[in-house]
């Protein structure tokens, strides 16, 4: 078993809130993702087992959404909004700047294992563009200076 007992418990508890247990797939995927940082076939199997659902139901659903990657990412997953409001204020440059600064390709993990930079569609932070999401948090109204400082902070926290 990959999932911890507490995750398992949380999943089965969550399922009780829904009239139909299949609805608990998304919450279960969130719980698993939060615990592991990525998903795998094994985790799909476990979720299916906990919820007494078919593997295919879990696997299909998970594959549809962007928030349940199957690949390992850096400790800090940086998602730069590439959409219009952010783009008008330099998000493309932001992405390029980050890649350059971290010396990494889009989607790859930095050598120190800390960072992965990807592009995202609009994250609902358009009036505070440009922005990026790092793990669960939004960092908004970004400037070069702010980005530099954030990266420093992440590095020092390790």
């Amino acid at each position, binding site marked *: 078993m990959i999932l911890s007992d507490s995750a398992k418990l949380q999943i089965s508890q969550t399922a009780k809130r829904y009239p139909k247990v299949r609805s608990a797939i*998304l919450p279960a995927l969130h719980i698993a993702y939060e615990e592991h940082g990525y998903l795998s076939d094994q985790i799909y199997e476990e979720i299916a087992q906990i919820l007494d659902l078919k593997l295919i139901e879990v696997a299909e659903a998970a594959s549809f959404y962007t928030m349940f990657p199957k690949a390992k990412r850096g400790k800090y997953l940086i998602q730069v909004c590439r959409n219009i409001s952010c783009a008008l204020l330099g998000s493309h440059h932001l992405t390029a700047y980050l890649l350059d600064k971290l010396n990494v390709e889009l989607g790859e993990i930095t050598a120190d294992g800390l960072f992965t930079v990807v592009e995202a569609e609009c994250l609902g932070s358009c009036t505070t563009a440009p922005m990026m999401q790092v793990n669960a948090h939004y960092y908004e109204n970004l400037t070069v200076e702010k980005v530099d400082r954030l990266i420093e902070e992440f590095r020092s926290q390790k």
Partner: protein
Amino acid sequence: METKLLTQHVGDPQQHTMERAIEHGAYQAWQKVLKEIAPADLIQIVKDSGLRGRGGAGFPTGLKWSFVPKDSLKSKYLCCNADESEPGTCKDRVLLEGDPHAVVEGMMIASYAIGCHTAFFYIRGEYDIGQVRMSKAIADAYAKGFLGKNILGSGYDLDIVVHRGGGAYICGEETALLSSLEGDKGLARLKPPFPAVEGLYRCPTIINNVETLANLPHIVVKGAQWFASLGTEKSKGTRIFSVSGHVKNPGNYELELGYSLRDLVYGLAGGILDDRPLKAIIPGGSSTPVLLPDKIDTKLDFESVAAAGSMLGSGAVIVMHEETCIVWVAEILAHFYMHESCGKCTPCRQGTGWIYEILRRIEAGYGKMEDIDTLLDIADNIEGNTICPLGDAAVVPVISTIKLFRDEYVYHIEHGKCKVHSQFKLRTK
């Protein structure tokens, strides 16, 4: 000037707590409803208020509720649509983070009106603070006895379940939202049956936007008449507009419907960044047609914006100044729709990708003159021919930019480069 109805207290950093919200009058409407108003009367009040949906289509809310079959023995469901993913839009987030209790109370009132006992709050997965605050607000409401069994002795039961999306714009579309909530992929469904008749778990279901619902406590407390006195003849109340892009003071502004676009952009939002000339405005989110500067005096209400050739949509006003390459804008939006198409129906699944590929080629300098007509024709083959409105939305930026800026496309193709090259840099400070 803003008309702060929904956003009156969002500036208060403690408004998300139960104590502060109650101080500011939260749940009075809920208590009033439970004590004094029958569901049918409530629906009538909302009808009378003239409230129209804030999710994009502007459908009259009371009328939508009345489609729920009264004699159906099936459970009825309410879903609050907080999937907010339309590029340019972040107005619901203001409420979720700034005044979650208003949203919870709105959900309660709507649930009561349609006879729902389990309501779902579907929030886009990325909205972390919003989700935390809404969950807390709901938990506090249970603690206060505003939710649960036999609420405040009324005999009415209601549960609210928070459901986080997984990252998919399409799940904001109501039928896809239901698929997603059922645990399936977020695939849009054929209509009919309409959700009000056969929605979640094949039961009657109402889907309302966050902002729509947040209006309800005010309507209940102050009355339909009062609400109807705000706004224009057909567009009642206020709306929160997200102003983004090339303005000096981007932000969310709550305005009485009918407010002038000029006053919003040049007044509240402080005018165009670096005082450059305005090039174009998208008034209602990425799925609405672009307006030229000559439409700057358009009033911001459903009818006036429609008359100007666009739509009020989600209230996201995206401002672009003269340095913006319009083909580039179209390409960015095309990428979005390609990425977010659920893939169920052919025109959208195949067409959005094709449009993007062509735009990318033009933008990269390899365009052909016939591409412009091809784009328009592809758009024509998508529009109106898809299962859900995402397909229609996807072609809007293409059609409207070609219509208004054809010369720029031509320049691009002829010269293999932008007429104006958008090289927007990250500010240093």
